[in-house]
Protein backbone atom coordinates (compact mmCIF):
# COMPACT_ATOMS: atom_id res chain seq x y z
CA UNK A 1 0.00 0.00 0.00
CA UNK A 2 1.25 3.48 -0.82
CA UNK A 3 -0.09 7.00 -0.38
CA UNK A 4 -0.27 9.21 -3.44
CA UNK A 5 -0.98 12.84 -4.13
CA UNK A 6 -2.91 13.53 -7.30
CA UNK A 7 -1.16 16.17 -9.38
CA UNK A 8 -4.45 17.20 -10.97
CA UNK A 9 -6.60 17.92 -7.93
CA UNK A 10 -4.13 17.82 -5.05
CA UNK A 11 -6.05 15.13 -3.20
CA UNK A 12 -4.20 12.41 -1.29
CA UNK A 13 -5.26 8.79 -1.02
CA UNK A 14 -4.06 5.27 -0.32
CA UNK A 15 -4.04 3.08 -3.40
CA UNK A 16 -5.08 -0.04 -1.45
CA UNK A 17 -7.85 -0.17 1.12
CA UNK A 18 -7.72 -2.07 4.40
CA UNK A 19 -9.69 -4.93 2.86
CA UNK A 20 -7.09 -5.25 0.11
CA UNK A 21 -9.19 -3.66 -2.60
CA UNK A 22 -7.66 -1.16 -4.96
CA UNK A 23 -8.86 2.39 -4.50
CA UNK A 24 -9.39 4.08 -7.84
CA UNK A 25 -9.09 7.80 -7.39
CA UNK A 26 -11.19 10.11 -9.55
CA UNK A 27 -10.79 13.89 -9.32
CA UNK A 28 -13.83 15.79 -8.15
CA UNK A 29 -15.33 18.86 -9.81
CA UNK A 30 -14.05 22.39 -9.25
CA UNK A 31 -16.00 25.57 -8.49
CA UNK A 32 -17.53 27.18 -11.53
CA UNK A 33 -16.33 30.79 -11.67
CA UNK A 34 -19.10 31.70 -14.09
CA UNK A 35 -21.89 30.59 -11.80
CA UNK A 36 -23.87 33.36 -10.15
CA UNK A 37 -25.95 32.01 -7.30
CA UNK A 38 -29.36 33.48 -6.75
CA UNK A 39 -29.19 35.43 -3.50
CA UNK A 40 -31.24 33.80 -0.80
CA UNK A 41 -32.08 30.74 -2.85
CA UNK A 42 -30.20 28.53 -0.45
CA UNK A 43 -30.37 25.35 -2.52
CA UNK A 44 -27.48 23.44 -4.01
CA UNK A 45 -27.05 23.76 -7.74
CA UNK A 46 -24.77 21.52 -9.75
CA UNK A 47 -23.96 24.47 -11.96
CA UNK A 48 -21.87 25.66 -9.02
CA UNK A 49 -19.23 23.20 -10.13
CA UNK A 50 -17.76 21.93 -13.37
CA UNK A 51 -15.48 19.11 -14.39
CA UNK A 52 -11.77 19.63 -14.08
CA UNK A 53 -10.10 19.95 -17.47
CA UNK A 54 -7.15 17.70 -16.62
CA UNK A 55 -9.11 15.22 -14.53
CA UNK A 56 -7.44 12.02 -13.36
CA UNK A 57 -9.60 8.91 -13.47
CA UNK A 58 -7.94 5.69 -12.33
CA UNK A 59 -10.76 3.39 -13.39
CA UNK A 60 -9.79 0.78 -15.93
CA UNK A 61 -10.99 1.56 -19.41
CA UNK A 62 -14.37 -0.06 -19.78
CA UNK A 63 -15.07 -2.84 -22.21
CA UNK A 64 -11.54 -4.23 -22.15
CA UNK A 65 -10.69 -7.66 -20.80
CA UNK A 66 -7.24 -8.51 -19.57
CA UNK A 67 -5.85 -11.67 -21.19
CA UNK A 68 -4.01 -13.40 -18.37
CA UNK A 69 -2.31 -15.86 -20.67
CA UNK A 70 -0.80 -13.31 -23.00
CA UNK A 71 -0.53 -10.61 -20.32
CA UNK A 72 -2.22 -7.93 -22.34
CA UNK A 73 -5.55 -6.99 -23.82
CA UNK A 74 -7.21 -6.80 -27.21
CA UNK A 75 -9.07 -3.99 -28.85
CA UNK A 76 -11.18 -4.25 -31.99
CA UNK A 77 -9.31 -3.54 -35.18
CA UNK A 78 -10.54 -0.18 -36.47
CA UNK A 79 -10.62 -1.33 -40.09
CA UNK A 80 -11.57 -4.95 -39.59
CA UNK A 81 -14.14 -5.43 -36.84
CA UNK A 82 -13.75 -9.21 -37.08
CA UNK A 83 -10.15 -9.06 -35.87
CA UNK A 84 -8.41 -7.54 -32.91
CA UNK A 85 -5.19 -5.76 -32.04
CA UNK A 86 -3.24 -7.11 -29.09
CA UNK A 87 -1.68 -4.69 -26.63
CA UNK A 88 0.81 -6.03 -24.08
CA UNK A 89 0.63 -4.68 -20.54
CA UNK A 90 -2.16 -3.75 -18.16
CA UNK A 91 -5.41 -2.18 -19.23
CA UNK A 92 -4.93 1.60 -19.26
CA UNK A 93 -6.79 3.81 -16.84
CA UNK A 94 -9.41 6.18 -18.19
CA UNK A 95 -7.33 9.33 -17.76
CA UNK A 96 -3.87 9.97 -16.38
CA UNK A 97 -4.54 13.65 -15.80
CA UNK A 98 -1.41 15.34 -14.51
CA UNK A 99 -0.21 12.12 -12.90
CA UNK A 100 0.44 11.42 -9.26
CA UNK A 101 3.36 11.36 -6.87
CA UNK A 102 4.05 9.10 -3.92
CA UNK A 103 3.99 10.93 -0.60
Amino acid at each position, binding site marked *: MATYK*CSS*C*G*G*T*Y*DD*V*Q*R*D*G*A*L*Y*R*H*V*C*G*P*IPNPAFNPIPGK*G*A*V*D*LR*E*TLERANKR*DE*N*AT*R*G*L*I*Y*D*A*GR*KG*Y*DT*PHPEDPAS*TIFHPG*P*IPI*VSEGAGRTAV
Partner: protein
Amino acid sequence: MDRQSQDPFDRTARSGGTVAVSHEEFSVQSQTALVRFLREGVQPPSVVYMGIDDQIQIFVSEALTPKTLNVQGRWLRAADGLIVPFQQAVAPTVAGGTALFTFRLGEGFLLSLTITNPSANISESSDFALAALSRTGGLFGQAGQTLCAGHVGANKGTSFPLGGIVRPLDGPGYIRSITGTTPALGADISETVPSGARWELLAFQGALTASAVVANRQPWFVIDDGVNLLKRSLSTQATVASTTSTYYADNPGIAPQASTQSALWSTILPIMLAPGFRIRTITSAIDVGDQWTSPKYLVRQWTDLE
Protein backbone atom coordinates in the same frame (compact mmCIF):
# COMPACT_ATOMS: atom_id res chain seq x y z
CA MET B 1 -39.27 -78.47 -24.67
CA ASP B 2 -36.38 -76.42 -23.38
CA ARG B 3 -36.46 -74.33 -20.21
CA GLN B 4 -36.88 -71.11 -22.12
CA SER B 5 -40.12 -72.22 -23.74
CA GLN B 6 -41.68 -73.86 -20.71
CA ASP B 7 -44.92 -72.34 -19.59
CA PRO B 8 -44.65 -71.98 -15.81
CA PHE B 9 -48.40 -71.81 -15.59
CA ASP B 10 -49.03 -75.04 -17.48
CA ARG B 11 -50.80 -77.39 -15.06
CA THR B 12 -49.28 -80.30 -16.88
CA ALA B 13 -45.77 -79.16 -16.10
CA ARG B 14 -45.13 -80.88 -12.83
CA SER B 15 -42.09 -80.01 -10.75
CA GLY B 16 -41.32 -81.78 -7.51
CA GLY B 17 -44.94 -82.30 -6.65
CA THR B 18 -45.84 -78.61 -6.76
CA VAL B 19 -48.62 -77.69 -9.05
CA ALA B 20 -48.16 -74.27 -10.63
CA VAL B 21 -51.16 -71.98 -10.31
CA SER B 22 -53.14 -71.05 -13.31
CA HIS B 23 -52.27 -67.73 -14.89
CA GLU B 24 -55.93 -66.84 -14.57
CA GLU B 25 -55.47 -67.04 -10.78
CA PHE B 26 -52.03 -65.36 -10.65
CA SER B 27 -51.30 -61.74 -11.29
CA VAL B 28 -47.88 -60.16 -11.27
CA GLN B 29 -47.78 -57.36 -8.70
CA SER B 30 -44.46 -55.92 -9.85
CA GLN B 31 -42.86 -55.55 -13.20
CA THR B 32 -39.32 -55.51 -14.37
CA ALA B 33 -37.61 -52.18 -15.17
CA LEU B 34 -38.20 -50.84 -18.63
CA VAL B 35 -34.71 -49.32 -18.78
CA ARG B 36 -31.71 -51.49 -19.31
CA PHE B 37 -28.16 -50.31 -18.78
CA LEU B 38 -25.29 -51.17 -21.01
CA ARG B 39 -22.20 -52.76 -19.65
CA GLU B 40 -20.25 -51.98 -22.82
CA GLY B 41 -20.30 -49.00 -25.16
CA VAL B 42 -21.66 -46.77 -22.39
CA GLN B 43 -22.28 -43.19 -23.53
CA PRO B 44 -20.85 -40.34 -21.45
CA PRO B 45 -23.27 -38.55 -19.14
CA SER B 46 -22.00 -35.12 -20.14
CA VAL B 47 -23.71 -33.03 -22.75
CA VAL B 48 -20.58 -31.00 -23.32
CA TYR B 49 -18.65 -32.50 -26.18
CA MET B 50 -15.43 -30.65 -26.93
CA GLY B 51 -13.83 -30.66 -30.34
CA ILE B 52 -10.14 -30.16 -30.87
CA ASP B 53 -10.69 -26.47 -31.62
CA ASP B 54 -12.80 -25.79 -28.58
CA GLN B 55 -11.30 -24.02 -25.62
CA ILE B 56 -12.38 -23.34 -22.09
CA GLN B 57 -12.53 -19.71 -21.10
CA ILE B 58 -12.41 -18.59 -17.48
CA PHE B 59 -13.54 -15.02 -16.89
CA VAL B 60 -12.58 -13.62 -13.50
CA SER B 61 -13.65 -10.35 -11.93
CA GLU B 62 -11.83 -9.58 -8.71
CA ALA B 63 -12.63 -6.51 -6.73
CA LEU B 64 -9.85 -7.06 -4.25
CA THR B 65 -6.19 -7.76 -4.86
CA PRO B 66 -5.47 -10.31 -7.62
CA LYS B 67 -5.43 -13.88 -6.44
CA THR B 68 -4.79 -17.22 -8.03
CA LEU B 69 -7.90 -19.32 -8.55
CA ASN B 70 -7.87 -23.05 -9.10
CA VAL B 71 -9.71 -24.66 -12.00
CA GLN B 72 -10.03 -28.41 -11.60
CA GLY B 73 -12.07 -31.03 -13.30
CA ARG B 74 -12.27 -34.29 -15.21
CA TRP B 75 -12.80 -35.05 -18.87
CA LEU B 76 -13.33 -38.17 -20.87
CA ARG B 77 -10.63 -38.24 -23.51
CA ALA B 78 -11.99 -39.40 -26.86
CA ALA B 79 -8.66 -40.77 -28.03
CA ASP B 80 -8.47 -43.54 -25.45
CA GLY B 81 -11.66 -43.35 -23.41
CA LEU B 82 -9.80 -42.53 -20.23
CA ILE B 83 -11.10 -40.17 -17.59
CA VAL B 84 -8.37 -37.57 -17.19
CA PRO B 85 -8.21 -35.08 -14.32
CA PHE B 86 -6.96 -31.58 -15.05
CA GLN B 87 -5.94 -28.58 -12.98
CA GLN B 88 -5.14 -25.04 -14.05
CA ALA B 89 -4.03 -22.10 -11.93
CA VAL B 90 -5.72 -18.89 -13.01
CA ALA B 91 -3.73 -15.83 -11.99
CA PRO B 92 -5.49 -12.76 -13.34
CA THR B 93 -2.79 -10.29 -12.17
CA VAL B 94 -5.35 -7.55 -12.42
CA ALA B 95 -7.92 -6.27 -9.97
CA GLY B 96 -10.90 -4.08 -10.51
CA GLY B 97 -11.46 -5.35 -14.03
CA THR B 98 -12.24 -8.54 -15.89
CA ALA B 99 -9.50 -11.00 -16.76
CA LEU B 100 -9.66 -13.96 -19.11
CA PHE B 101 -7.73 -17.21 -18.93
CA THR B 102 -7.98 -19.73 -21.76
CA PHE B 103 -6.90 -23.35 -22.09
CA ARG B 104 -7.65 -26.37 -24.27
CA LEU B 105 -8.19 -29.94 -23.22
CA GLY B 106 -8.72 -31.81 -26.48
CA GLU B 107 -11.46 -33.86 -28.06
CA GLY B 108 -13.74 -35.52 -25.57
CA PHE B 109 -16.48 -34.98 -23.05
CA LEU B 110 -16.20 -32.52 -20.20
CA LEU B 111 -17.37 -34.36 -17.10
CA SER B 112 -16.84 -31.77 -14.40
CA LEU B 113 -15.21 -28.41 -13.77
CA THR B 114 -14.83 -26.50 -10.53
CA ILE B 115 -13.41 -23.04 -9.89
CA THR B 116 -12.29 -22.46 -6.32
CA ASN B 117 -10.51 -19.74 -4.45
CA PRO B 118 -7.84 -21.14 -2.15
CA SER B 119 -7.28 -17.80 -0.44
CA ALA B 120 -8.31 -17.59 3.18
CA ASN B 121 -10.28 -14.75 4.70
CA ILE B 122 -11.76 -13.65 1.42
CA SER B 123 -15.34 -12.50 1.35
CA GLU B 124 -17.53 -15.02 -0.39
CA SER B 125 -18.92 -12.49 -2.79
CA SER B 126 -15.91 -10.36 -3.59
CA ASP B 127 -14.72 -12.34 -6.59
CA PHE B 128 -16.71 -13.70 -9.49
CA ALA B 129 -15.80 -16.35 -12.04
CA LEU B 130 -17.48 -17.67 -15.17
CA ALA B 131 -16.48 -20.68 -17.25
CA ALA B 132 -17.51 -20.96 -20.87
CA LEU B 133 -16.80 -23.12 -23.86
CA SER B 134 -15.68 -21.18 -26.90
CA ARG B 135 -14.77 -22.13 -30.44
CA THR B 136 -13.56 -18.89 -31.93
CA GLY B 137 -11.38 -17.84 -29.03
CA GLY B 138 -10.02 -14.42 -28.35
CA LEU B 139 -11.49 -11.77 -26.15
CA PHE B 140 -14.22 -10.96 -28.58
CA GLY B 141 -14.99 -14.53 -29.55
CA GLN B 142 -18.39 -16.02 -29.04
CA ALA B 143 -18.94 -18.24 -26.07
CA GLY B 144 -20.54 -21.43 -27.29
CA GLN B 145 -21.88 -22.37 -23.91
CA THR B 146 -21.71 -21.01 -20.40
CA LEU B 147 -20.68 -23.87 -18.16
CA CYS B 148 -20.97 -22.32 -14.72
CA ALA B 149 -20.76 -18.93 -13.07
CA GLY B 150 -20.76 -17.75 -9.48
CA HIS B 151 -18.98 -16.04 -6.66
CA VAL B 152 -15.82 -17.70 -5.45
CA GLY B 153 -14.87 -17.07 -1.86
CA ALA B 154 -12.45 -18.79 0.47
CA ASN B 155 -12.52 -22.48 -0.37
CA LYS B 156 -15.87 -22.04 -2.07
CA GLY B 157 -16.50 -21.98 -5.73
CA THR B 158 -18.69 -22.62 -8.67
CA SER B 159 -18.86 -25.83 -10.62
CA PHE B 160 -20.15 -27.58 -13.70
CA PRO B 161 -22.53 -29.36 -14.13
CA LEU B 162 -24.36 -28.88 -10.84
CA GLY B 163 -23.17 -25.46 -9.70
CA GLY B 164 -25.60 -23.45 -11.73
CA ILE B 165 -25.17 -20.04 -13.27
CA VAL B 166 -25.29 -17.04 -10.96
CA ARG B 167 -25.07 -13.50 -12.26
CA PRO B 168 -22.41 -11.17 -10.89
CA LEU B 169 -24.95 -8.84 -9.32
CA ASP B 170 -26.85 -11.64 -7.61
CA GLY B 171 -26.30 -12.51 -4.00
CA PRO B 172 -25.73 -10.49 -0.86
CA GLY B 173 -22.70 -8.54 -2.07
CA TYR B 174 -19.91 -7.88 0.35
CA ILE B 175 -19.32 -5.19 2.92
CA ARG B 176 -16.56 -2.67 2.44
CA SER B 177 -15.36 0.11 4.71
CA ILE B 178 -13.68 2.67 2.47
CA THR B 179 -11.43 5.60 3.24
CA GLY B 180 -11.64 8.06 0.39
CA THR B 181 -9.51 10.87 -0.96
CA THR B 182 -8.51 13.75 1.29
CA PRO B 183 -9.31 16.76 -0.90
CA ALA B 184 -6.90 19.63 -1.36
CA LEU B 185 -7.33 22.71 0.80
CA GLY B 186 -10.50 24.54 -0.05
CA ALA B 187 -11.93 21.64 -2.07
CA ASP B 188 -14.96 19.49 -1.43
CA ILE B 189 -15.23 15.71 -1.09
CA SER B 190 -15.97 13.74 -4.24
CA GLU B 191 -16.03 9.94 -4.30
CA THR B 192 -16.88 8.06 -7.49
CA VAL B 193 -18.32 4.57 -7.75
CA PRO B 194 -15.66 2.61 -9.66
CA SER B 195 -16.36 1.03 -13.00
CA GLY B 196 -17.70 -2.50 -12.72
CA ALA B 197 -19.02 -1.92 -9.21
CA ARG B 198 -22.48 -1.41 -7.81
CA TRP B 199 -22.67 0.15 -4.39
CA GLU B 200 -25.34 0.27 -1.77
CA LEU B 201 -24.31 3.20 0.41
CA LEU B 202 -24.94 2.38 4.07
CA ALA B 203 -23.12 5.12 5.95
CA PHE B 204 -20.99 8.16 5.21
CA GLN B 205 -19.07 10.69 7.29
CA GLY B 206 -16.49 13.40 6.84
CA ALA B 207 -14.99 16.15 8.98
CA LEU B 208 -14.51 19.78 7.99
CA THR B 209 -11.89 21.95 9.66
CA ALA B 210 -12.55 25.61 9.01
CA SER B 211 -9.83 28.19 8.64
CA ALA B 212 -9.72 31.37 10.69
CA VAL B 213 -11.65 33.25 8.04
CA VAL B 214 -14.98 34.20 9.54
CA ALA B 215 -17.89 32.58 7.72
CA ASN B 216 -20.49 29.90 8.31
CA ARG B 217 -19.68 26.89 6.18
CA GLN B 218 -22.75 24.75 5.68
CA PRO B 219 -22.11 21.67 3.55
CA TRP B 220 -24.58 19.80 1.36
CA PHE B 221 -24.48 16.04 1.03
CA VAL B 222 -25.00 15.34 -2.66
CA ILE B 223 -25.49 12.27 -4.82
CA ASP B 224 -25.19 12.70 -8.58
CA ASP B 225 -24.83 10.38 -11.56
CA GLY B 226 -21.85 12.29 -12.87
CA VAL B 227 -24.04 14.88 -14.54
CA ASN B 228 -27.40 15.16 -12.85
CA LEU B 229 -28.18 15.93 -9.24
CA LEU B 230 -30.12 13.03 -7.75
CA LYS B 231 -30.15 13.60 -4.01
CA ARG B 232 -29.20 16.40 -1.68
CA SER B 233 -29.34 17.18 1.97
CA LEU B 234 -28.25 20.30 3.86
CA SER B 235 -26.42 19.77 7.13
CA THR B 236 -28.14 20.52 10.38
CA GLN B 237 -25.50 22.99 11.42
CA ALA B 238 -22.65 25.08 10.07
CA THR B 239 -18.99 25.00 10.84
CA VAL B 240 -17.71 28.34 12.06
CA ALA B 241 -14.20 29.72 11.81
CA SER B 242 -11.38 27.79 13.47
CA THR B 243 -13.52 24.81 14.43
CA THR B 244 -13.94 21.24 13.22
CA SER B 245 -17.27 19.52 12.64
CA THR B 246 -17.87 15.91 11.73
CA TYR B 247 -20.82 15.37 9.45
CA TYR B 248 -22.75 12.10 9.31
CA ALA B 249 -25.27 11.07 6.70
CA ASP B 250 -28.13 9.44 8.53
CA ASN B 251 -31.80 8.73 8.19
CA PRO B 252 -34.44 11.29 9.15
CA GLY B 253 -35.56 10.94 12.71
CA ILE B 254 -32.10 10.41 14.09
CA ALA B 255 -31.55 13.11 16.65
CA PRO B 256 -28.36 15.05 16.01
CA GLN B 257 -25.84 14.83 18.79
CA ALA B 258 -25.94 17.89 20.99
CA SER B 259 -22.49 19.01 20.08
CA THR B 260 -20.95 21.68 17.96
CA GLN B 261 -18.51 19.06 16.69
CA SER B 262 -21.13 16.76 15.22
CA ALA B 263 -23.81 17.36 12.62
CA LEU B 264 -26.12 15.42 10.39
CA TRP B 265 -27.13 15.24 6.81
CA SER B 266 -30.65 13.93 6.96
CA THR B 267 -31.01 11.54 4.06
CA ILE B 268 -32.53 8.16 3.27
CA LEU B 269 -30.01 5.33 3.43
CA PRO B 270 -29.22 2.92 1.96
CA ILE B 271 -29.18 4.13 -1.61
CA MET B 272 -28.08 2.18 -4.68
CA LEU B 273 -25.32 3.69 -6.79
CA ALA B 274 -24.16 2.65 -10.25
CA PRO B 275 -20.67 3.05 -11.74
CA GLY B 276 -19.82 6.71 -12.25
CA PHE B 277 -22.23 7.94 -9.60
CA ARG B 278 -20.65 10.30 -7.11
CA ILE B 279 -20.96 11.01 -3.41
CA ARG B 280 -20.03 14.62 -2.84
CA THR B 281 -20.10 17.56 -0.56
CA ILE B 282 -20.80 21.09 -1.74
CA THR B 283 -19.88 23.52 0.99
CA SER B 284 -21.31 26.97 0.91
CA ALA B 285 -18.88 29.73 1.86
CA ILE B 286 -15.94 27.32 1.79
CA ASP B 287 -12.63 29.08 2.26
CA VAL B 288 -9.41 28.27 0.46
CA GLY B 289 -7.92 27.35 3.83
CA ASP B 290 -10.71 24.93 4.84
CA GLN B 291 -9.85 21.25 4.98
CA TRP B 292 -12.11 18.25 4.60
CA THR B 293 -10.63 15.07 5.99
CA SER B 294 -10.75 11.87 3.98
CA PRO B 295 -14.34 10.59 4.06
CA LYS B 296 -15.14 7.23 5.61
CA TYR B 297 -18.03 5.29 4.23
CA LEU B 298 -19.62 1.89 4.37
CA VAL B 299 -20.95 0.21 1.25
CA ARG B 300 -22.21 -3.14 0.12
CA GLN B 301 -20.54 -3.88 -3.19
CA TRP B 302 -21.27 -6.11 -6.14
CA THR B 303 -18.64 -6.50 -8.83
CA ASP B 304 -19.75 -7.02 -12.40
CA LEU B 305 -18.03 -8.60 -15.36
CA GLU B 306 -17.22 -5.85 -17.81
